[in-house]
């Protein structure tokens, strides 16, 4: 390799980095580093314009090493590697310096010290970059089967989509029955379709599909392996089952927050929006099974306590609060839909929706909101500083628009609470090595660039396990996740990083310690003319480096993470 000509591209990430670090100082500093011949800052290095600059740097400035100081390699390294490749530079001559996720975002009040840290990180990255060597990716076979975890609307849709493309699907559901939350929903907005009919059809299609094997009453116990080759162990009652899949889709959904201790919640006169669904659905199905096939004949309010009831719905219960800062996203629409259903069944019923902000996005949902107003549903805005109070048979609310307190008689109070993540989501996350947020929702690799992928390759995400999603969104995400998985499964092979061990046979004394410690049996002793020597089986090596770090003779080097590269990084930490 010729002498290193390092180009450094420093990303503003809009204001995500530039707002907290002194970019001009970093640019100036990077120019002083050894081997650096070109430095540029970009508002968004990952955007077309930013990547074009990298290509230009390689082709016009003769850069043979590229360093990007930006977000995190876990999301953007593949993109920049591809950019290097497009410009004719081996992708393994690229180095990432993380100055956003691990610098600007975590030192938001310390511009000077954070900038100093970023300088250190740049220096370390450049030192490593200068020693990088070109590598070729290694290809491994992909098992053309997928595991889908969760058989709600998202999981069912993803499973069907993959199965229809000809892939084998293992669908695991921990409940005894498939269908998820929709089993307890009455009708779907904005179409008014019967939820049970809708979900039952999907469940039946899954059951009948020859490519789908369903495991109900089953939980995932262990996941090992890597993209294209995951080993999964599930527990079904007393039995443990194991299977191998190439991809995994997480569709574990969410559950409704139970507002215990709030607004006199008792599950009878003060219920949740989800419980109202159940009540309406139950009544609807009773009528349906007794011969009233047309959903229009359903009179859901027949199950409410009195004729012409007064129903008060309170929005944002347990959400957009200190405890749970997020918006429930679907509860406004549920409230509008159920308000309309009640009015439709009993036009003399009174429905009040006490809201902080109504969120009925888009043409159709906004239309339903208008319709609800037209039907006489009363919308009253309250502020979180003076929330409504629920007393026996009446609700008192301070109307922000009228500027006065109103007392509303109520036969039923309905609390719109958000979906919350599954309590054991962190367990599953740990098994899959993917992140969950503090509310138990899974976090995608990148909110815009890879919204349905996890950062861990070969694992995808859809539905309310991600964030509260309505049916349309869940199905869209499921199809998207299935499509993402099918790219992998249909490819047959996947490139894995050429981070493998290489044995220096001159130094190797054939002690066999590496063979002992390797978890993949990827290094074996073989007889050679020079005696017993360790040899790496490249296709089996996963690149952990445990052999190299332990070899008594220090005869094993890890490609792309060589001792020399790591020493350079360590040495560069302290500026001389």
């Amino acid at each position, binding site marked *: 390799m010729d002498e290193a000509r390092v180009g450094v591209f420093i990303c503003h990430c809009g204001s995500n980095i530039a707002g907290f670090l002194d970019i001009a100082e970093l640019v100036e500093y990077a120019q002083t580093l050894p081997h650096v011949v070109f430095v540029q800052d970009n508002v968004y290095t990952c955007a077309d314009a930013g990547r074009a600059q990298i290509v230009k740097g390689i082709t016009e400035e003769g850069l043979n090493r590229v360093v990007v100081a930006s977000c*995190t*390699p*876990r999301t953007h390294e593949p993109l920049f590697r591809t950019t290097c490749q497009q410009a004719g530079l081996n992708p393994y001559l690229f180095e990432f310096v*993380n100055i*956003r*996720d*691990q*610098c600007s*975002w*975590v*030192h*938001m009040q*310390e511009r000077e*010290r954070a900038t*100093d*840290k970023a300088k250190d*990180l740049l220096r*370390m990255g450049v030192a490593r970059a200068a020693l990088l060597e070109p590598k070729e990716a290694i290809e491994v076979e992909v098992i053309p089967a997928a595991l889908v975890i969760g058989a709600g609307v998202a999981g069912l849709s993803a499973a069907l989509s993959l199965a229809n493309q000809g892939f084998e699907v293992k669908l695991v559901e921990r409940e005894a029955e498939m269908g998820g939350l929709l089993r307890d929903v009455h009708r779907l907005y904005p179409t008014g379709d019967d939820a049970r009919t809708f979900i039952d059809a999907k469940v039946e299609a899954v059951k009948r599909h020859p490519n789908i094997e369903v495991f109900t009453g089953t939980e995932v116990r262990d996941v*090992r392996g*890597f993209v294209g080759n995951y080993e999964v162990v599930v527990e079904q009652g007393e039995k443990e089952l194991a299977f191998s899949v190439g991809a995994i889709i997480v569709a574990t959904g969410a559950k409704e927050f139970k507002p215990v201790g709030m607004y006199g919640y008792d599950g009878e006169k003060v219920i949740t929006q989800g419980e109202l669904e159940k009540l309406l659905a139950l009544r609807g199905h009773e009528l349906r099974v007794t011969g009233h096939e047309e959903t229009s004949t359903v009179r859901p309010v027949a199950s409410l306590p009195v004729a012409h009831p007064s129903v008060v719905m309170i929005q944002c219960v347990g959400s957009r609060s200190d405890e749970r800062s997020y918006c429930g996203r679907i509860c406004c629409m549920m409230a509008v839909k159920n308000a309309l259903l009640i009015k439709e069944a009993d036009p003399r019923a009174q429905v009040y929706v006490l809201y902080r902000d109504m969120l009925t996005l888009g043409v159709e949902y906004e239309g339903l909101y208008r319709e609800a107003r037209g039907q006489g549903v009363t919308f009253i805005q309250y502020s979180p500083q003076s929330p409504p109070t629920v007393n026996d048979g009446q609700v008192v609310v301070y109307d922000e628009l009228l500027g006065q307190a109103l007392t509303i008689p109520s036969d039923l109070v309905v609390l719109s609470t958000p979906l919350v993540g599954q309590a054991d989501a*962190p367990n599953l*996350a*740990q*098994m899959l*090595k*993917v*992140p*969950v947020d*503090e509310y138990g929702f899974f*976090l995608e690799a990148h909110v815009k660039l890879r919204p349905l992928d996890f*950062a*861990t390759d070969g694992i995808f995400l859809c539905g309310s396990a991600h964030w509260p999603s309505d049916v349309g969104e869940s199905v869209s995400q499921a199809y998207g996740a299935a499509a993402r998985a099918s790219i992998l499964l249909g490819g047959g092979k996947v490139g894995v990083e050429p*981070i493998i061990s290489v044995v220096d046979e001159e130094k190797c004394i054939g*002690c066999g*310690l590496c063979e*002992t*410690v390797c*978890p*993949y049996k990827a290094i074996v002793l073989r007889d050679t003319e020079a005696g017993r020597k360790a040899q790496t089986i490249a296709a089996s090596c*996963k*690149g*952990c*480096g*445990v052999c*190299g*770090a*332990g*070899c*008594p*003779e*220090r005869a094993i080097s890890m490609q792309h*993470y060589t*001792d020399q590269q*790591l*020493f350079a*990084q*360590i*040495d560069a*930490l*302290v500026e001389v």
Partner: protein
Amino acid sequence: MTATGGFEPKILGFLCNWCSYAGADLAGVSRFQYPPTLRVIRVMCSGRVDPVFVLRAFSRGVDGVMVLGCHPGDCHYATGNYYARNRAKVLKRLLELAGVNPDRLVLDWVSAGEGEHFATLVRDFTERIKALGPLGRSEGLSWDELQKRLAAARRVMEGEQIRWLVGREREMVDKGDVYGQPISQEVFDALLEPSVVAEYLRSRLLLLTADRPLSVKAMAGEMGMAPRLVLPHIVALEQAGLMAMVGIEGNSPRYQSISG
């Protein structure tokens, strides 16, 4: 040192790609704030961290080192973190022998979902290192003396004996020795301890006499030990062909290490 004159520790972190690095990213995504004292090197697995890396960092004047991996049982590579744990144990002992506070090294676990935990670890470790003070100075060691001692520790971890023992620890304790007899952790530790001590002292002796011959008394003086405790190691080195008597001054034989 910051402009205000307070001690600003330099901390190096080795973070595994799959769990702890992801946890550190999550701390960022969640905007959990922590002090800007940590510089991270990403490795695929905590099992990649050769003890030599850690000692090299201390030799460079880094005040603290964090090795963070996946939780036990959750290693992306199944078992890498167990090796990291065994290596951290022997590293701490070597630091102690070198007169460096072993609390300057921490091994801990951070999952991909534990952003807050990661931030807390960095905060706590920064506080710990701040309390200890700059490397060497708070140990009462001059820079040169620190370098000598760390060089000896590094030599131990570059050599095959301790690398071999530490590498075999898991298997010997879990599955048994070459005769298929598992040995208890206590027995293993009792076996390791004298080897580490002997290797450290011998490394120091070899480095002390690399450029010039020294008497037993002079070597003992340099190491702050009684000559009678140093002598057996000199004999052992002589027998191993690593040190030789090269002359006598007065009544004292002088020894020098044999390079190569």
